[in-house]
C-alpha cells in the first residue's frame, strides 16, 4: 500500500470532518454547516431533514452558542434530476423562535434567495441548552431547533496522523473525535407528498447570509 501522502501535504489537503471546520469564511460561525441528514421518519410517509451547524461545541460553550438572525438555513430539493432546486425549505431565527417557510418553489434558483412569507409553514421556540427539546407540529410538519449531541462519529485524529505520515492505518478500536461535542441543529419532518412525486430526490443544505 502506497499513499500519496507527500503530495497531499504539499497541496495542503487536510481532511477535517464530515464538513466540520471546513473553510475560512464560515468556520466557527453560524453559517458553518457541519452535516446534513435526510431519512425516512418514524411515520414512513414523512422525510426528515436535519442540518447541523457550528460543530465541536464543548458542553461549556453550548449554552452561549446561538443561531444568527441574518443567516438563513435552506434545504434545497431537486425532484427533476437536474441538480437545480425545485423546492426549498427555509429556516431563520427571529427572537427566541425559528421560523420555517416551504417547501415551496423559489422564484429564483442559485446563490441568492429571498423569503416568501406567504409560504410560512410554522415556527418553534428554540430549545435551550440543558432543557427538554421543544418541538412543534404545524401544517403536517414537525419542527425543532436547538443544541443536540453531534451525531457524527469519526476517528479524525488518527486519519490526520495517517495523512501526516505518522501512522500507516487506523487503530482498533478507534477514538471518536466528536464524542462529547455538540452542534446547533435544525430538524424538519415533512410529508413526502409535499415534495412531489419523484421516486428519487437530490437534496443539499445551504446557509445564506442577509446582505
Amino acid at each position, binding site marked *: *500500500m502506497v*499513499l*500519496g501522502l507527500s503530495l497531499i501535504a504539499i*497541496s495542503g*489537503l487536510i*481532511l477535517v*470532518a*464530515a*464538513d466540520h471546520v*471546513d*473553510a*475560512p*469564511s*464560515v468556520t466557527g460561525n453560524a453559517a458553518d454547516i457541519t452535516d*446534513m441528514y*435526510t*431519512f*425516512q421518519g418514524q411515520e414512513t410517509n414523512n422525510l426528515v431533514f*436535519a442540518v447541523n451547524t457550528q460543530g465541536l*461545541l464543548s458542553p461549556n460553550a453550548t449554552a452561549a452558542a446561538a443561531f444568527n438572525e441574518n*443567516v438563513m438555513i435552506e434545504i*434545497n430539493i431537486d425532484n427533476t434530476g437536474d*441538480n437545480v432546486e425545485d423546492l426549498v425549505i427555509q429556516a*431563520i431565527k*427571529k*427572537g*427566541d423562535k425559528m*421560523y420555517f417557510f416551504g417547501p415551496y418553489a423559489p422564484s429564483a434558483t442559485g*446563490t*441568492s*434567495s*429571498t*423569503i416568501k*412569507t406567504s409560504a410560512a409553514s410554522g*415556527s418553534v421556540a428554540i430549545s435551550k441548552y440543558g432543557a427538554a*427539546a421543544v*418541538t412543534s407540529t404545524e401544517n403536517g410538519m*414537525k419542527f425543532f431547533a436547538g*443544541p*443536540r*449531541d453531534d*451525531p*457524527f*462519529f*469519526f476517528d479524525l485524529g488518527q486519519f490526520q496522523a495517517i495523512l501526516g505520515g505518522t501512522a500507516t*492505518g487506523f487503530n*482498533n*478500536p*478507534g477514538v471518536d473525535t466528536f464524542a462529547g461535542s*455538540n452542534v446547533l441543529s435544525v430538524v424538519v419532518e415533512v410529508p*413526502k407528498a409535499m415534495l412531489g412525486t419523484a421516486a428519487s*430526490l*437530490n*437534496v*443539499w*443544505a*445551504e*446557509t*445564506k447570509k*442577509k446582505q
Partner: protein
Amino acid sequence: MKTNKFKIITLALVCAVATVSCNDDDNNGDAMASTDFSGTFVQQDQMARPAINTVFIASGQPKDDFNAAIPSAMGAKYQPIFESRLMALNPGYTTNALGLTAAQFTGVLATDVLNVKTSGKTTFFDGTNVLTGRALADDVIDVELILIFGGPTGGSNTGLTSDHVDANDKAFTTSFPYLAAAW
C-alpha cells in the same frame, strides 16, 4: 460597599430581564405579522454528502469557493480536481466496490447532492441499498474509506478502510427530533 454595588447591579439585571420578558409577551401571537423577513440572502456554505469538501478540496480559498458553488455547476469544474485528489490519496486506485473508475467515481462525487429515495429504506449504504439517503446511524466514513481505498472488492488496504468507530457516542431516539440531547 462592594456588596451593595453587586446588589445594585444584580437588581438592575433582574429589572432588565423582566423588561425583556414583558416585551416578548407583548409580541406573542402576532410574530409572523410583525416580523421582517425581507432582504436578499447570499450563499455562505453548501453541503450534501459527508466529507466531500473536506476530503477533495484543498484548504483555504478553494474550500470557500466550493461552499459558494451550486451543485448544477460543480460537476464540470470539480470532477478533474476530485480525480487528482483521489489518485493522490490512493495511487493504486483502479475501480471500487461500486465498479466505478476514478473518472466515474469522482464524476458522481463532484456534484455534491445527497440522493434520497422517496420510498423504502433511507441509508448511505447498508450492504444492500446504496445512496438512498443518510440516516443518523450510518457509518458514512467507513463507506467512503472503502470506496476510496478498498479497491474493486472493498478488501484492499484493510488498515485504511475502517476507522473502527462504528457508532455515535449517544443513542438516537426513535421519534422526532431523533438527534440525542446535547452533552
